[in-house]
Structure formats: C-alpha cells, structure tokens
C-alpha cells in the first residue's frame, strides 16, 4: 500500500530544544488521520514539516511520494490549513477564491462556489468581519477546492464553539466521501477525532508514543482487573501500558494480540479515548523496552 506520509528518524530542533525526535511513521493513503497529544507535544512541528513550512534537523519526511513543498507538482498535491485557520482580514471572500484560483493548477471553482453558497457567505464580505466558524469554513473551502491528495489541518476546530465544530467536521467528512482525499488533522482533544479518524498518532513530549489503525488499537488493548499481583508475571506478548494497585486489586491496561483466558482477570474493552489517555499519561520510560511504536505500526 502506498504511504501518504512517511518519516524516518525525523527530528526538529529549535535552538537547544528538540520539538520532535526519533519520529518514524508510515501512514497509508486514503485515511483520515488524527494527530493527538497535549499542547506543546510537537504536533504543529510535525505538520509544518509535512507541509514543507519547516525543514528537518535530522531524518527524512516524504509526503505523497515526494519531499514536502519541492516543486510545483508537489505543492499541488498537499493542502495545508495552519493553526487558527488563517485568512487575510482585509481581503474579501471573493479575493480569497481568486487567490486559490490563480495559485492552484487543480483548482475546482464549482466546488468552491457551491460551498460558499451553501455556507451563506457573502462574496464581498471581508474575511476580518467573518465569525470564527465562518473563517474556518472559508479556509476549509480553499483547502477542499484546491483538490489536494492530502489535506493537512492543524487544530482546525480548537477555537470553535460546539456547533461550529460539528458543522466543520460534517463538511470535512462530506468532502472526504466526495473527493477521496487523505486527511491529517491534529487536536489536543481525543473527542474531536474519535468519530472522524480511522488512524491515530499519539504524540507526547516530542515523541510518537503509538500510531496505528483505530480498529486495531481498540481491538488489541484491554483493561484487566483482578486480585493484586505483579504485572511482571503476565505471560509474554502482553505489554503493560499502565498499572495501578490498591492493597487488594490490580488494574492493568495492556496491549495484546492474544486473547486473555486467565479467569482471575476481568477483561473489559476500552474506547479510543481510554487508550490514548493511557499512552499520554504513562511515563515514556515504560515504553523503551517494549517499543510499542514500531510494533503497532506494522
């Protein structure tokens, strides 16, 4: 399967601080990818590297089979909506469409105009006078009408109210259904991506903690509760993501591809949010030995 995003030993350093390091990814095409992690984890850095706004300090990144932003053909393949869905405040909606038309060889004017009409936006209105939700929708319109192979969106709904969030996601999913493009979108909230993404990348403290197909992640992670015991006594092939104990009880969050038959454990399924939160909150040291990133990627 062709990869829409491929990173090898990718890292980015700002002065003395690594914003992203040891990043290995292979994201298949045709997916809606959720990039989740707390603020400051390196999400924007990764997306800026993917869009070619930044260049790597070490390692390589490939997007749609080419180096980010290298040449006109590559630029046409990737759409990027930066954080806070920026628009030009003093320019009108029509001016924005005009920009899109001139700068993008595959520009789809019919799609752009149809969306503006359905959104009820006035073509003569200045972008600075639009509401946050309308501005986000205008930026999304430019991203969709560009007809990219991959659309990258950095925290597109973070600043929106719940209704505008929902409308934005509805329009994005409709566009995915219609045009079949791949999407990578970041959010610091798992709930934003739970419905919309079928692939998730969890980034914490400048490192990828886990990445993979959502159904596979949900299918391979379980919560085990039972009488208190040492997690090290678990059979091989089970990786403990988090463990907590009371004086009598042990609760483990494990990743395993083998069914758990031990009757002393009560096994409960986990939602995506539980899994992501477990990876976010457990210390990085816990992953060094088990190398979950590489295994889940396969």
């Amino acid at each position, binding site marked *: 399967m062709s990869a829409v995003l491929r990173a090898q030993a990718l890292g980015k350093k700002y002065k003395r601080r690594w914003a992203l390091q040891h990043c290995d990814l292979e994201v298949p095409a045709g997916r809606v990818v959720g990039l989740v992690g707390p603020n400051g984890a390196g999400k924007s850095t990764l997306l800026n590297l993917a869009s070619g706004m930044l260049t790597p300090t070490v390692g390589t990144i490939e997007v749609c089979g080419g180096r980010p932003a290298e040449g006109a053909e590559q630029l046409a393949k990737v759409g990027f909506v930066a954080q806070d869905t920026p628009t030009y405040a003093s320019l009108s909606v029509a001016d924005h469409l005009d920009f899109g038309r001139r700068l993008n060889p595959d520009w789809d004017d019919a799609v752009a105009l149809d969306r503006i009409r359905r959104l009820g936006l006035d073509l003569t209105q200045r972008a600075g006078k639009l509401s946050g939700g309308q501005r986000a929708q205008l930026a999304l319109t430019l991203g969709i009408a560009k007809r990219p192979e991959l659309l990258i969106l950095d925290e597109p709904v973070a600043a929106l109210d719940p209704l505008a969030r929902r409308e934005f996601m509805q329009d994005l*999913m409709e566009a995915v*259904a219609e045009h079949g493009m791949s999407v990578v979108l970041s959010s610091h909230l798992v709930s934003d991506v*739970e*419905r919309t993404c079928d692939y998730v990348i969890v980034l914490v403290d400048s490192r990828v903690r886990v990445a993979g197909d959502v159904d596979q992640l949900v299918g391979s992670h379980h919560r085990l509760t039972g009488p208190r015991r040492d997690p090290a006594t678990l059979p091989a092939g089970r990786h403990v993501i988090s463990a907590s104990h009371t004086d009598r009880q042990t609760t483990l969050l494990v990743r395993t591809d083998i069914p758990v038959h031990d009757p002393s454990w009560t096994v409960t399924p986990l*939602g995506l949010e539980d899994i992501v939160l477990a990876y976010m909150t457990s210390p990085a040291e816990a992953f060094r030995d088990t190398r979950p990133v590489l295994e889940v990627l396969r």
Partner: protein
Amino acid sequence: MIEFHLNDRSGASPYQQLVQQVRHALRLGLLTEGDRLPTVKEVARQVAVNPNTVLKAYRELEHEGLVAARPGVGTFVTRTLADASLVAHGTLRQDLRRWLTKARLAGLDEESIEALFMNTFRSAAGEDVA
C-alpha cells in the same frame, strides 16, 4: 429512510453503532426489503463520521446478507430480520413484565435487576458459544 445517530459514550465504536442501528431497524420492521440506505456521503455528513467507517459498516451488513449494493444506485435492504419472530414479541414482553414485577416484589432495585439480567444474559450466551 433510516437516520443514524452516534453516541460517543456508548462504548461501541461508530462502526458497530451503525451496524447495530440497521439491524435494530430491521428487527423492529422499521426497514424492510427494498428500502434504500442513505449514501455513504449522506451519512458521513449527517453524523460527521469518517466515510470509511460507513463503508465498513455497509460491507459488514452486506456480508451478513442483509443489504446489497447496486453500483451507482445505492445500498438496498434485501432481507428483513423481523419476519416470524416479530409475532412472538408481544407474549415475550408480557412474560418479561411479569418477571420484572416479581423482581421488584422481591426487593430488587433497578440497578440490581439490570445487573442480574445482564449477568444471566451473558452467562447464557457464553454457554451457547461453548
């Protein structure tokens, strides 16, 4: 036409919820043979869900022989789950009501009733499998 709803707190994945809602509608006779399901694009938009998820749910229903995709036309219901068993619902509901009354008279509150039911249901289902 069926309208889908997703519940983020249900514990079931969006894909499972879509499959369940179609099966539920088939069982209750809300969907019958020949009815068209909404298009992938319509569902993606309506509930803001990934179109791949809708496709996967429709493929699962197709695999179960409940719907069939006619390229360029849509996905149609080919079989109903209601048929003969729907007739039995009335008496079964009555039995269940009687049982609930008994349980309340025995002093069980709602939570205990639900726990007892789910527990018995699961162990019975487990015996069937084994």
